[in-house]
């Protein structure tokens, strides 16, 4: 169970305090899939960072009684002097997993060839993306956090990601955050809309998407 209770997040900006999330609450049971839509700047990534535990909420509590991933395919923590293999070892050490049995999967999935043992600074953008995704899949979690960023790369990679995540791991819980409703419709039964700092739940994805489209027609939030 993942439980978000009255979570708010306020950032200090040069123009004073800015409330990005305002009293957000929801629960996610094991194996359930939740889609969250919201326009750019609505606070989607902030919510993901809070659930991941990278940042702390200004107020409210996040309880995790199942293991929760880091934001999927997040590549920002790559150290450019480390090789792909080093990065796999690092992630495995942090999560207390033996890296050796995972090497074949990561090598096969990333198709990096000998670059797997080269420093990450020599990687192309596509190679980085594949490595980031493979590392996310290497550690098994009960709940995956999926930011829209993963919907990049070529068609073949895209398909392989979907097989790994949505087919092989469809028994896991996940939170899928995006502004593309189509992806959510494919995999989620319910969806919520993040609007003006509040999270508004809807029983069906269609209703959520209708509301989301309506919010797009209005003025963007003051920032």
């Amino acid at each position: 169970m993942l439980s978000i209770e009255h979570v708010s997040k306020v950032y200090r900006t040069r123009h004073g305090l800015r409330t990005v999330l305002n009293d957000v609450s929801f629960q996610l049971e094991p194996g359930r899939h939740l889609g969250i839509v919201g326009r750019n700047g609505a606070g989607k990534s902030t919510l993901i960072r809070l659930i991941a535990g990278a940042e702390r909420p200004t107020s409210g509590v996040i309880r995790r009684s199942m293991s929760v991933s880091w934001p999927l395919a997040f590549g920002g923590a790559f150290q450019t002097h480390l090789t792909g293999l080093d990065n796999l070892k690092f992630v495995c050490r942090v999560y207390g997993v033996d890296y050796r049995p995972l090497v074949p999967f990561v090598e096969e999935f990333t198709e990096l060839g000998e670059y797997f043992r080269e420093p990450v600074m020599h990687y192309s953008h596509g190679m980085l993306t594949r490595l980031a995704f493979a590392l996310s899949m290497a550690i098994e979690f009960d709940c995956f956090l999926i930011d829209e960023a993963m919907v990049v790369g070529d068609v073949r990679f895209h398909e392989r990601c979907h097989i790994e995540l949505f087919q092989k791991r469809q028994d896991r819980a996940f939170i899928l955050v995006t502004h593309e409703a189509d992806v959510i419709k494919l995999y989620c039964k319910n969806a919520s809309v993040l609007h003006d700092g509040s999270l508004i739940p809807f029983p069906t994805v269609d209703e959520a998407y209708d509301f989301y489209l309506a919010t797009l027609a209005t003025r963007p939030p003051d920032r």
Partner: protein
Amino acid sequence: MTANVSLHRSFAIQLRVLRALMLREIITRFGRENLGVLWLIGEPMLFTLGVAGLWTLAGLRHSSAIPIVAFAVTGYSSVLMWRNSASRCGAALLQNKALLFHRNVRALDIFLTRIALEISGATSSFIVLGTIFTFIGWMPPPEDLVKVLAGWVMLAWFGTSLALTVGAGTSFSAVVERVWHPIAYLLFPLSGAAFMVDWLPTNLQKLVLLLPMVNGVELLREGWFGTVVRTHYDIGYMASFCLILSLVGLYLQWKADRRVDV
């Protein structure tokens, strides 16, 4: 789950994360080419050797009883102990923020990793240089190893508490890192590395002993050179200073953990 079990688990996670960070930091900083991890010792050794050479050439005023190389090795190694950890922690958060996406990695872990690496590098360099110079006769053998060790541990404690404070400070304001470097630069000549307290007029002695690291260096040198040198220190004062600074550092770390945004 009892509190004891969860504490045990937290401790295991903590060790796991520190080990992962440590291995990562070593490769990141020193790479695999040429000496690799040996640079952890080589870098402080080169600094110390350079300073020893410069002081010899400059004919720095020193107590006639102590060879200048011995004076430089004990002095500059002490500087490495209190200065380098803080300097490495000043930039740590900025360089490693993205690691916080892994929930078990906290800002404190990143700082502790860097402090541990600096201390082990400076300590190994001190041991290697001290041993070599003692063997070839450029340094007398240490008179009282327990005192040397005590001085060293005190310097390590001061360096750690200072580094935690400076490191946490950077999450409140970038100014902390900017200000730290000039402060470190100005503290160096006052730190007791290049003088013995006994050489100073009495009123200045009291003043300079307010700087905690001066007490540590004096104790270290008393241990190494014995009664050949007259030393002045107050380890009770230094310990109180370190204790308070440790508490301040840990409190700031706790506050920082709540406000670091990635």
